[in-house]
């Protein structure tokens, strides 16, 4: 199944949390794997991310969270993406406690990349999310956490 064009991913941090080490490392892992990265960076809102995702025509949105606000922010991003008319899959990276996983799945998060995820897991998760976006949703899965 050849790709018409490389997968494009938008990477962002939502809200006030400035811990961007993970996001920056993921950006380089994906770039090295031939995936196009649009780096929105810090202090984004769900609406800014949705607008940028449309404008840049990305296949996947990745947000990184280390602030414990994922249960508020992830559904808000999904809702903002939905209102654009093209629901782009959302991958969440960072620290998400086990107890919150069902709620994240219910909210429609495509996948979660926890601490310690390998380069292969990062790439495979994004490629899988991109496919699910093209072909319709699959159940959420979790790697490395």
């Amino acid at each position, binding site marked *: 199944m050849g790709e018409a064009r490389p997968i494009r991913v938008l990477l962002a941090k939502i809200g006030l*949390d400035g811990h961007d080490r993970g996001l*920056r490392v993921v950006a380089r*892992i994906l770039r090295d794997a031939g995936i196009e990265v649009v780096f929105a960076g810090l202090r984004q809102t769900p609406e800014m991310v949705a607008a940028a995702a449309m404008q840049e025509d990305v296949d996947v949105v990745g947000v990184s969270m280390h602030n*414990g606000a994922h249960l508020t922010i992830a559904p808000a991003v999904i809702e903002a993406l939905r209102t654009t008319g093209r629901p782009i899959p959302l991958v969440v990276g960072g620290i998400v406690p086990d107890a919150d996983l069902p709620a994240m799945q219910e909210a429609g998060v495509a996948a979660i990349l926890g*601490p*310690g995820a390998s380069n292969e897991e990062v790439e495979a998760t994004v490629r899988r999310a991109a496919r699910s976006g093209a072909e319709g949703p699959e159940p959420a899965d979790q790697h490395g956490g």
Partner: protein
Amino acid sequence: MTKRDEWEASYARSPLRAGPFETMSGIPLEGVYGPDEAEFPGRWPYTRGPYASMYRSRLWTMRQFAGFGTAEDTNRRFKDLLEAGGSGLSTAFDMPTLLGRDSDDPLAKGEVGRAGVAIDTQVDMETLFDGISLGSVSTSMTINSAAAVIMAMYIGVADKTAVERAALSGTIQNDILKEYQAQKEYVFPPRPSVRLVADLIRFAAAELPRWHPVSISGYHIREAGSTATQELAFTLANGFAYVEAALRSGLGIDEFGPRLSFFFNAHIDFFEEIAKYRAARRIWARWMRDRYGARDPRSLQLRFHTQTAGVSLTAQQPEVNLARVAIEALAGVLGGTQSLHTDAYDEALALPTDRAARLALRTQQVIAEETGVAQVADPLGGSWYVESLTDELEKRAEAIFSHLEETGSGSMLDGVVACIDDGWFCREIADAAYEFQSKLAAGQWILVGVNGYTEGDDRHPPTLYIDPKVEATQLARLAEVKQGRENDEVRRSLARLRAEAADPTINLMPALIEAAACHVTVGEAMSTLEGVFGTWLEPSFV
């Protein structure tokens, strides 16, 4: 008189803890070991420690960082830690407070009380320290962008509870430069931010003789992915920058030099970490004396807090983190730290539970009471390996200082700000982080439970649950405080703050203390300053 004689004289003047100082089998121990003309602790160039008697006089302060939920929640954790034998308090604020936003700010949604305690007004600060006398406990507050605003509230609590300002003892992080480089909790552009740091340094020099108005921090630089060398060099460079800012504001070097303090990471590469602390002390002493003309020995003595490396903790097989933390803490102690926070083993999963936080404190107590390592100062001094690593780290740090100084045409302050402006620090740190990740990917660095030894129990322990009601509780309290305050006073104090912010020769602390007293919120004070100072956006790069 030999160097040992000089050390003996200082040692003889130091009060000592109860002994005996001996090994388990009864061999009596000297306070330090080395030839008569070696370097000695408490003596120039302070490589071996700031004090002659080190832990024989006083153990390091066991200072566990805590903060979550409302001020009441954190107040309860503070009292638990004090009862369990902790010797100082350390406050973690939530993200909105750190960024100077109120709990009812739209950008605060979902973050109130999540990663630390929510503080909106001085009323919350009074609750946070309720039942704890500010004159008899030493408090550390980890906050940077909004440091001056929070410090004003803390002073307000002291004023209100009739504790003399001069009796306040503790530290406020107030290190904004590393925020642009690593942790990214900035609001204003670098120059006005540095002015606020200098204002607090000046205020402390005049009114808070036992307070550390800045804790120059490598911790976050390291957590963001730097190497030990970069942590050492960037941190000390930031220190030189603050020194130059305070000198430019008219202070004499020895008026504030003794109150500067540092904060380093304790990562897992044991000997390199120890060498890093030793190199830091020697470099600081030399620059303070030779470059900035300090004469007071206390200005030359680098004193530091240490925290074990959060970034070294794994979510996989989390109990293994107990071993990592113990080893890292030991490096901090052998490196001569003045205070120490040990991470809890569950921190790669969530904020620590009570049980995990207590185990972390117990780890320090084992090192202090059982291992015997606190009896002899700088026990690794003279090791060919450790001395050679110390020299090498110093050499590499000096090469980085040269780059910064050249960029700043001879000024470290200007060099550091210029390298923030063009994203140099961020790129250097991101490169190092990616290099480490590549080593993990290639199997050149093994992380137990992550890319090696992965079989075994990977179940996660129960983690701290933060009640989502925290946000609603805090919003109700904020509304109540706003309802009950004198709006004319609020308007007047904000007008004063705005006017004084526009004049860089005025120290902003008195205006902030006045504002705090009439229950101006953190967000109101910060947005008033932002109106004058402007907002910072970081240069873009991947």
